[in-house]
């Protein structure tokens, strides 16, 4: 599927920023996750050798997305992985938003993978999640 995100060039001179869009919160989480994955390495050169699963809940959808994106950055360092794809499902559970997702990838191999930029952190700078005319949109700045 085509993930809908675009790089926001002028927002972060020394770093990188993107805007992700989805018809639903699930699609938004999928697109934003993919933006992180593709910032780290070319996913087409990564095999889905191992999968990690995640589940989070939060009353605030923006906070939930922030946690999910930070998970990806964490796993890159903690387990030395790069990723091919994500799965994401966001649903309502009473007053909470519930996120269930997964990451598939494999240990970093500089000889085989096209590595790109090492993300230090997902930042709160100009961070925003909003719904606009039926579209879910997130603006995210990454510290590189």
């Amino acid at each position: 599927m085509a993930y809908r995100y675009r790089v926001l060039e002028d927002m972060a001179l020394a770093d990188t920023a993107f805007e992700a869009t989805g018809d639903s919160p699930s699609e938004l989480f999928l697109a934003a996750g993919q933006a992180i994955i593709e910032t780290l390495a070319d996913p087409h050169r990564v095999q889905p050798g191992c999968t990690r699963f995640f589940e989070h809940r939060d009353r605030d959808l923006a906070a939930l997305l922030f946690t999910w994106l930070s998970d990806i950055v964490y796993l890159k360092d903690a387990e030395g992985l790069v990723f091919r794809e994500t799965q994401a499902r966001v649903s309502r559970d009473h007053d909470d938003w519930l996120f269930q997702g997964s990451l598939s990838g494999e240990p970093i191999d500089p000889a085989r993978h096209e590595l790109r930029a090492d993300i230090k952190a997902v930042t709160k700078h100009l961070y925003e999640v909003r719904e606009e005319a039926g579209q879910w949109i997130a603006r995210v700045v990454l510290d590189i």
Partner: protein
Amino acid sequence: MKLQTAFTVNRVTDEIWEIPTSEKPGMLVPARIYATEPILNSMDSGVFEQVTNVACLPGIRRYALCMPDGHWGYGFPIGGVAAFDPQDGIISPGGVGYDINCGMRLIRTDLTLAEVQPRLEQLMTELFRKVPAGVGSRGFVKVTPQEFAEVMRKGARWCVERGYGWQEDLDRTEERGCIGEADPADVTDYAVQRGISQLGTLGSGNHYLEVQVASQDRLFDPQTAAAFGVTGHEQILVMVHCGSRGFGHQVASDFLKVFEKAMRRYDISVKDQQLACAPFCSPEGRQYFSAMNAAANTAFANRQVITHQIREAFQSVFGQSAESLGMHVIYDVAHNIAKVERYAEGDLVVHRKGSTRAFGPGRSEVPALYRHVGQPVICGGSMETGSYLLVGTADAMEHTFGSTMHGSGRTMSRAQAKRSVKGEQVQRDMKRRGIIVKAVSMSGLAEEAGLAYKNISEVVEAVDRAGITKKVAELRPIGNIKG
């Protein structure tokens, strides 16, 4: 070029510019920017907005400062310096940065360009093999969580105790590579897991290891250069730029969350979410200070392990011991840190984010062997244009809380740089000019091309003329390793 702000910016001297407190509601002190007029005019609007935001933080003293390599950052501008009263002031991860104790280390050698040139390709290949770089890179030093806690406490000293360095390396490192008040209990297991495998790695982005040359014609102060061990006879030096890797990044992220909540408790409001802070003397403030020091110590350890690997690489290529090659550390200094330092007002919590400590002669914190001249200041330029060795001054102590610039600062976004040039082309062009580049990521190499950066010489000229550091030597690159 016109000034990119609507704020009134008054000229104090040709290199000092001031935004008065009347320019933004809540400013407690004026903001001061160190820059020549052309540099000031080229600064992005974020610098003016952010330095005046910093001037609103509780307990700030004298001025919110920005150095000439300043540009937009998270919370504080890059190049930002601010000092806070430890009793009524704050501490903020936004004033330190995500890469806690990102810093510079410079190592001298007795080798000359003529001796190294024939084996430069071999040397760069060996350095590239021995010093892991790039996304999620992992180091050769394997430690248990208990040992990693020791690294947090002891910093570079832990490395030297295990044979990764010389005792004298510690004498030539800020804080002797080990800051006190670093309690591993104050960091999360999450942060430990993120960084435990990365000791001795460069990372990516603007981090690098560079082989450089010091020439007689680019020595500005031969006497001070000699005190630092720089002869300038086409002498080979090695510069390292990196920080605390994933561990430090996670400590910063963890405490931004803690401080968002703490601000409500302490009724602190800030102009930007990334300026989240807590009173320095609050439990949260002390806990961050301790965790930040733990991360700073791992950064000193990281650069120490890299130093060990650099010496091993030189030994293997030149068939001589590192000692006989004269591979002494000149200095190791942080440019992302908060420290308690004594000034005329008493103790202050000085935040430096993309700014280097630049203590002048006589200060007890300056290593004894340099105390008569002042502290070495290491400023990295782009990989194409070279770097500088400077020295701290008494003026810096008086005017900028003993602080100065740290690098050249970007002028072009990463995406724009990648559109302008390909990594392979940068590598070929640099090779033609005698600079061998080894890079893990070709897109990362394009992002770091010289065209994306300010001219470091203009930035250095500004701090030299302002008197807050003085030029010692310009160092030109002949080999570079990028993540």
